[in-house]
């Protein structure tokens, strides 16, 4: 049995997504910009997917811009908004725990003369909305803050952050990277008072290579990819119809029963916590402030990479910290004040609706076994 517990890195495309993708490649293969029927069929395919995504976020179909993935969405949001607002100011504010696609893009902007302010977490590892508002000054044009952290599952209070920021300076744009929250937490785009939101297909059972940026009506971005003027000129390039269709189908398949899935994740994470509650070797990074579908834990004295490969031999797949960080030190763990030794021992376990309690039990005994057999590698204590 394959036990795939790395659903925050990527997910296995669902049957609905695969079918929609194949259908779009074999039947609606036209260029959506073509004037004839074959083109129109492809355009309708995109319209349908937009409706499905709009229904999940309660946004308007015209607010969806498809991208190659959340990394591009984050690039478009940050650079596109910073450039569009350049006459109003040149300061952007981000949280210290953003995904590299926000962090590195902000660094690139800093090299172009923008000022980047980073908001640090409080002593307990959570973020206060006020700290974002405090970071906003008269030169600030954009605040970017993720909804759920990809490494620890930390839930950031984006609604409060957006409200606090806008109360201080109403014309500041607020962007949120909602990749780890989309279709897991109930998101109502219009009531969040954010202007830009990034989502990804492959985290929600669609293929890799498709994502979207939700752009609130009236918000102007400078395009980062220019060309034939597709998608109202915001993102040129012939739309990848099969990917878009798959994205829409995957979203439609999951947009209901959020609370039932959440209850399932809560039961799974509780089972995991309870299993190690008496075991001093296992400590949890995740807390009450974290979402239940991402569990971050460390096994004392066993490097996560070693444990990861040990589990892999048993057909169990987890991640060490963040999959994007491969081997590098995690800036998230640094920001949260986790010492590097412990950070090196951190595993990320992330669930899907298909994850069962039996899988959790197998994982638990495998970790215990690993902790016993790999214990001789301990260098501390």
């Amino acid at each position, binding site marked *: 049995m394959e036990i795939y517990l790395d659903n925050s890195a990527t997910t296995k495309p669902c049957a609905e997504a695969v079918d929609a993708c194949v259908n779009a490649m074999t039947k609606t293969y036209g260029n959506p910009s073509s004037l004839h*029927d074959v083109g*129109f069929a492809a*355009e*309708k395919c995109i319209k349908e997917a937009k*409706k499905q995504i709009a229904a999940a976020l309660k946004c308007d179909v015209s607010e969806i811009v498809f991208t190659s993935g959340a990394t591009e969405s984050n690039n478009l949001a940050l650079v596109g908004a910073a450039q569009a607002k350049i006459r109003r100011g040149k300061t952007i504010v981000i949280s210290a725990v953003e995904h590299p696609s926000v962090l590195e893009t902000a660094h690139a902007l800093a090299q172009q003369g923008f000022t980047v302010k980073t908001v640090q977490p409080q002593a307990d590892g959570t973020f206060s909305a006020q700290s974002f508002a405090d970071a906003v000054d008269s030169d600030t044009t954009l605040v970017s803050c993720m909804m759920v952290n990809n490494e620890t599952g930390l839930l950031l209070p984006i609604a409060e952050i957006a409200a606090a920021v806008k109360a201080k300076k109403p014309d500041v744009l607020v962007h949120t990277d909602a990749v780890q929250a989309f279709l897991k937490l*109930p998101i109502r785009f219009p009531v969040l008072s954010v202007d830009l939101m990034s989502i990804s297909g492959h985290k929600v059972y669609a293929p890799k290579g498709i994502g979207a940026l939700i752009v609130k009506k009236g918000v102007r971005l400078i395009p980062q990819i220019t060309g034939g003027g597709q998608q109202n000129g915001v993102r040129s390039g012939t739309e990848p119809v099969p990917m878009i269709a798959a994205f829409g189908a995957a979203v439609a398949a999951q947009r209901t*029963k959020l*609370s039932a899935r959440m209850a399932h994740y809560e039961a799974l994470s509780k089972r995991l916590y309870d299993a190690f509650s008496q075991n001093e070797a296992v400590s949890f990074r995740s807390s009450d402030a974290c979402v239940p579908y991402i569990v971050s834990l460390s096994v004392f004295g066993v490097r996560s990479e070693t444990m990861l490969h040990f589990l892999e031999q048993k057909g169990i797949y987890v991640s060490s910290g963040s999959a994007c960080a491969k081997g590098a030190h995690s800036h998230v763990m640094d920001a949260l004040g986790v010492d590097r030794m412990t950070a090196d021992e951190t595993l990320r376990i992330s669930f899907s609706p298909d994850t069962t309690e039996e899988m959790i039990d197998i994982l638990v005994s495998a970790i215990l076994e690993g902790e016993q057999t790999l214990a001789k590698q301990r260098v501390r204590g």
Partner: protein
Amino acid sequence: MNEAILLKTGEIALKGLNRGSFEDILVKNIRWRLKPFGAFDIQRAQSTITVRPKSDDIDLDEVCDAMGKVFGIAAYSRALVTEKDLGTILKDAVSYLKDDLSGIRTFKVEAKRSDKSFPYKSPEISREVGAALLSAYPHLRVDVHNPQMTVIVEIRDFAAYIHGAQREGAGGMPVSSSGQALLLVSGGIDSPVAGYMMARRGLKISAIHFVSPPYTSARALDKVETLLQTLTDYTGNITFYCVPFTKLQEAIRDHCPEELFTIIMRRLMMEIAVRVARAHDLPALITGESLGQVASQTILSLAATNAASDRPVFRPLIGMDKKDIVAIARKINTFETSILPYEDCCTVFTPKRPKTRPTLRYVEESQALFDFEPLLAEAVEHIEEKVIRLEW
């Protein structure tokens, strides 16, 4: 959390003896709108309809959004259903109203006690709840004359209700309570707004549209269907008649004076609409015409078009400015679709210098230059009919 949605009926509360039948229609419409969300318990009392979900997993935010689009509901609010115990009521009022009260400064409390066995009288309940809210939220003060929010606490037979902030409903009269009518829809900004406004007066809407391929494209038709789809949010399902109009337009071009192309085209559209209305028992037509907006909407042009109809033509936009129409189009979310740039049947063969003051006699004589009847009959025979359904 046990919550209910309270719907205030507006104008229909003023109806006399037939108020009951208006309410029946409204409740039927509400039930239909609620169906996809799950099972609900619906009760009527005075001018309030109480909707209570029968299970916990129903998203009341979505239900509220849907109820905000049902005509005949003047205002609506959510309410917490709680125990009939003053201590519990005070505690629950403080927590339940937190968000509603955070953005305002003045409030008052109104208590209604329909269960007279409850040991506290209404003024006492108001005083206690007011005091509890004031001590929990010190930024508030009481203003009994002009409060920003009125907190309502109701003691009913089986439970106490604490009402949240009241929101404005869609207003108007329940769809179908005034009968049915046929909307002539082009794909522009105005006709969907006209349909919305007449549905708000209680009409159930059917729609008719004219296509002229290859002069008009499949995208133009899709645009109209998308517009109607958007309208179904308010109107419910719409029966849609699509009329093949190419031959008639070509005949006008070939046989009539150019300056009258548009007027005669509109008269023929009206003629076909009347036949459809007659066949389907629709006693009135609706258009998005606004006086003076274009050459075909001058007083004499309207008179010439009007003469082609044997039944009332409702023109709710007749006295409105374009910017007011656009404001409504934005509100009902049709604007973005309306401005998509596709050729529609009204823009095919537009005259260079259209007649702005045509006399009816001149128009009728010009139209008589060609026998349109066989083509009219053929067009009516080939009408495609479908139902545009509200999507969930």
